[in-house]
């Protein structure tokens, strides 16, 4: 399988802040890769570095190498909080059209995410849609440019379980279509459900990489064990 993104010894240095890395991992074509860690572990920073939008000034440094075997335009991004990612003053329709795609492609993408938005409803404003619908919309907006890699940064953490299940179904479909997914989350069950390989991030370092089954059955790092224990289990008795 061809490698899409290859990260080698990536180090992010902040003059007065945390230091991330060194970390190395690669994402292959058509695979779902999970990046799991607590808040503050540096998950989102890695995503930003991959998209090449981190600014380096005031002593911030990036060392190591990120090899992209696709253009930056072929990387799409689904953020954590869909409501904050859209402009509240513009209709959702105008924000989709801003992406510069044909109407056909837009409708196709909307259909893919099972969002019944046509004509009138494209004229609605972001606040008129529910959180689940907004997240679908953002996934559609990410898919409309036919990306090779979809970076999803905690896409379900602001949703309830039912909508979470629906969104996860979408990600499975995206993966089945042959689009790579970088799935960033703090929720192990989701990553293990979707991903073929995953890395565990702790205090800016990758402490474990492997396939979900190995990590579940034989976690090597103390932090992974703690994460596994923290997953809420159904208590029947």
């Amino acid at each position, binding site marked *: 399988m061809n490698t899409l993104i290859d990260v080698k010894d990536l180090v992010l240095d902040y003059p007065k802040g945390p230091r991330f890395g060194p970390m190395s991992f690669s994402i292959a074509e058509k695979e779902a890769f999970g990046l799991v860690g607590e808040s503050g572990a540096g998950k989102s920073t890695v995503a930003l570095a991959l998209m090449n939008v981190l600014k380096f000034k005031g002593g911030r440094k990036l060392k190591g190498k990120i090899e992209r075997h696709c253009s930056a335009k072929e990387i799409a991004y689904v953020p954590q909080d869909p409501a904050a990612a859209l402009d509240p003053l513009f209709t959702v329709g105008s924000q989709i059209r801003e992406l510069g795609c044909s109407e056909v492609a837009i409708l196709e993408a909307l259909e893919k995410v099972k969002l019944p938005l046509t004509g009138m409803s494209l004229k609605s404003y972001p606040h008129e849609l529910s959180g689940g619908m907004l997240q679908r919309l953002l996934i559609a907006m990410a898919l409309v440019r036919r990306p090779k890699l979809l970076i999803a940064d905690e896409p379900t953490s602001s949703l309830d379980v*039912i909508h979470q299940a629906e969104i996860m179904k979408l990600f499975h479909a995206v993966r089945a279509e042959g689009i790579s997914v970088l799935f960033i989350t703090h929720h192990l069950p989701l990553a293990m459900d979707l991903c073929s390989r995953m890395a565990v991030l702790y205090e800016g370092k990758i402490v474990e990489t492997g396939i979900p089954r190995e990590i579940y059955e034989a976690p090597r790092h103390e932090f992974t064990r703690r994460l596994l224990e923290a997953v809420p289990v159904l208590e029947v008795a």
Partner: protein
Amino acid sequence: MSSDSVFQLKQVFKAYPSKGGKKFHAVDGVDLELKWGVAYALVGESGSGKTTFGRLLSGMIPPTEGEIFFEGKKMRDWMRRDRRKFCKKVQVIFQNPYLSLDPKWNIREILEEGTLGAWGRGRKRKIEVILERVCLPKDCLPKKPHALSGGERQRVAIARALLMEPEFLILDEPTSQLDVSTQADIMNLLRDLRPTLTGGLLFITHDIALASQLAEVFIVMRHGKIVEKGLKKEILFSAQAPYTQQLVSASPAWPPVF
């Protein structure tokens, strides 16, 4: 009226104004009785009216129609002293610890507000005991909420509620803003507290697994209506309503199936 009920709801409606002068019923005709000493879970998707229900019970908002009785007394007819009595018995812990603590007060001031009738050394001692119980270090007292992490803030909110020595706790999604390991810590804390809550609790959540760790009786809510109410086992294994089944199966499988 049976005396063993904490709350009794009779045809309770709560409507909010909506587009075009219409009304949106967040709580839509609920008949319910919550008994003393039982841990209840209120589960449902977002927008189902869970939080509004919690607010109605805590007396923060009145119902537009119907009556809520607390220990047999209509909440609508409350005098000021009834309200005070209620606050001593029932405390609420909110979803967002970033909003529920006053940013201009330090932790000591926030906690002192909950120590009604205690002064001087007694009050200091009381706060120290409660801090230990929620596993917070003493040196957080002079800090302001912004200097604490989300989990620590939620512990402060829990400590503030516990200082009143409540009998009944209303927990409105107390862990949904926290990450998983902090969530596990808070859940452990709540489970340790459960025996001290003689009156029971109402745990509002959308996560069935979390609810199962704390509650004995499940109330399933959708579109402001009670869909189903039953013991934990009944809801988890033999739910009648299709919506309940959907809710139970929506949580990702754990342990995972490979």
